[in-house]
């Protein structure tokens, strides 16, 4: 084993041709980071606003309905669905399954299609029902 020879670095983004599997892999990390920081901050803020009473909650709700608030919430919804579907893909791959090139690519694309579809569906419902 010539283990001391220089070996390729793992996330070598400049030399590998981009594919759905790479996009989904990096999206899993980015959406995970966004959910950890912004997602949990919004969840905690929301719960604190509910606990603080009707007046505090109206302020939170107004902010959530503002254009910036909606962009953040829709973005977090997409991040949640993308991370969820991609996470399920990872759980399957943890068992050693789904590594065939075709299957792997198909499921990578499906997580993106699925996350966008679920986000659109949920917000179409929310904006229709809440307003």
């Amino acid at each position, binding site marked *: 084993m010539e283990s001391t020879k220089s070996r390729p670095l793992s996330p070598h983004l400049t030399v590998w041709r981009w594919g759905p599997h790479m996009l989904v892999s990096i999206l899993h990390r980015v959406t995970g*980071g966004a959910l950890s920081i912004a997602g949990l901050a919004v969840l905690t803020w929301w719960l604190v606003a*509910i606990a603080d009473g009707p007046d505090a909650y109206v302020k939170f709700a107004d902010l959530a309905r503002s254009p910036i608030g909606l962009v953040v919430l829709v973005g977090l919804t997409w991040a949640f669905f993308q991370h969820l579907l991609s996470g399920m893909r990872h759980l399957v791959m943890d068992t050693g399954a789904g590594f065939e090139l075709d299957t792997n690519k198909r499921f990578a694309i499906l997580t993106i299609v699925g996350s966008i579809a679920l986000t659109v569906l949920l917000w179409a419902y929310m904006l229709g029902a809440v307003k």
Partner: protein
Amino acid sequence: MSLGDSATPLGKVRGLGSAGEGGEHWLSERVTSIALLLLGTWLIASLILLPGLDQHTLVEWLRAPSGAVPMVLLVIVGFRHALDGMKVVVDDYVHDEGNRFACNLILLFLAVGGAALALFALASIAFGGAA
């Protein structure tokens, strides 16, 4: 490094990962991910099924055990899963041992502090007087 040629390939690389440990951490990340699959679906389904999203309706929802208990679990498991995931990111990108320890310490404090705040809010909603 002084194991010489007698070491197996596995023996040469063991302990050289970015964290140097992690079996339990790896498993914790997977177990919490499956729990969040259920709890996240519950949260979205609840938001869809609730008659409204005003403060009064949300307090009624989170005061009942059927709302309070899953939400407490979602907060605890969510912050734990975020901490597990963010630790992987820190271990991957922060190479200096001192900085890595500091980053992981900050993450731990943020996660425990955020979870405590969210749980306190839930406790005030569930046990507080008439809001």
